[in-house]
């Protein structure tokens, strides 16, 4: 019963944090620490959103085909979905989560970031998950090569 209550409260707080834009949104660092230590993309998505069905549509990720330097790889995420959050993951670095965007009523989902991606020899896959306001989850993938790793310093 305790646990049930706790979960319910969590959901309530989440709804409150997302709906009015003027209210301070969630700090996912504090709210979901497990997201930031997850070692695989699947685990990170599970830690962030739970065991949800991911729909492969509506999310566009753009990167160069080959990133010259892994120290600063430009990544662009675009989507027209009415969203609550957008989370970006990758499978090259020791931990999977890169960034989580909180979407508010002013937001347009067209974000550019520069990420460090470790060169692992294999192509790197960048994954973005959009949590829609309709309660569904949308996923997009983009695979690229990194010529020189960026995490080793």
């Amino acid at each position: 019963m305790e646990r049930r209550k706790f979960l319910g409260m969590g959901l309530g707080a989440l709804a409150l944090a997302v709906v009015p834009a003027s209210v301070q949104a969630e700090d996912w660092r504090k709210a979901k620490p497990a997201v930031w230590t997850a070692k695989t993309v699947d685990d990170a998505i599970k830690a962030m959103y739970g065991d949800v069905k991911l729909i492969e549509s509506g999310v566009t990720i753009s990167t160069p085909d080959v990133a010259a330097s892994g120290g600063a790889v430009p990544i662009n995420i675009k989507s027209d979905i009415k969203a609550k959050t957008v989370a970006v993951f990758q499978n090259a670095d020791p931990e999977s989560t890169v960034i989580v965007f909180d979407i508010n009523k002013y937001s347009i989902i067209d974000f550019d970031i520069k990420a460090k991606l470790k060169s692992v020899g294999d192509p790197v896959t960048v994954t973005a998950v959009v949590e829609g306001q309709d309660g569904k989850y949308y996923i997009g993938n983009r695979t690229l090569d990194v010529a020189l790793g960026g995490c080793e310093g």
Partner: protein
Amino acid sequence: MADFKIKAKLKKGVVSVKAMAKHEMTTYDIAKKQTGDRENANFIFHITATVNGETVWEVSTSQFLSKNPIFKYKFQGIGKKGDHIIMTATDRKGHALKGKGKIK
């Protein structure tokens, strides 16, 4: 007030922002290599951008952003020419970063 460089432009009702945070963004791996202790890692945890007191952009971030990370984002429905965008961030060590830019 100079931890962020912010450029913002208003065009057809959409404000496009390009911002750079001045931060080393040390990962656990780099910290371990350079100082021998992964706990010396320091990177930005959370960034908020506000216009006229309203949050327009908010992110929680990890160690995997580049050094002096650049962000581009857009928003609409708020902000006119001359308004200020205020960006604040906190890093792993608890330092606060702050910057201000004008919408042109």
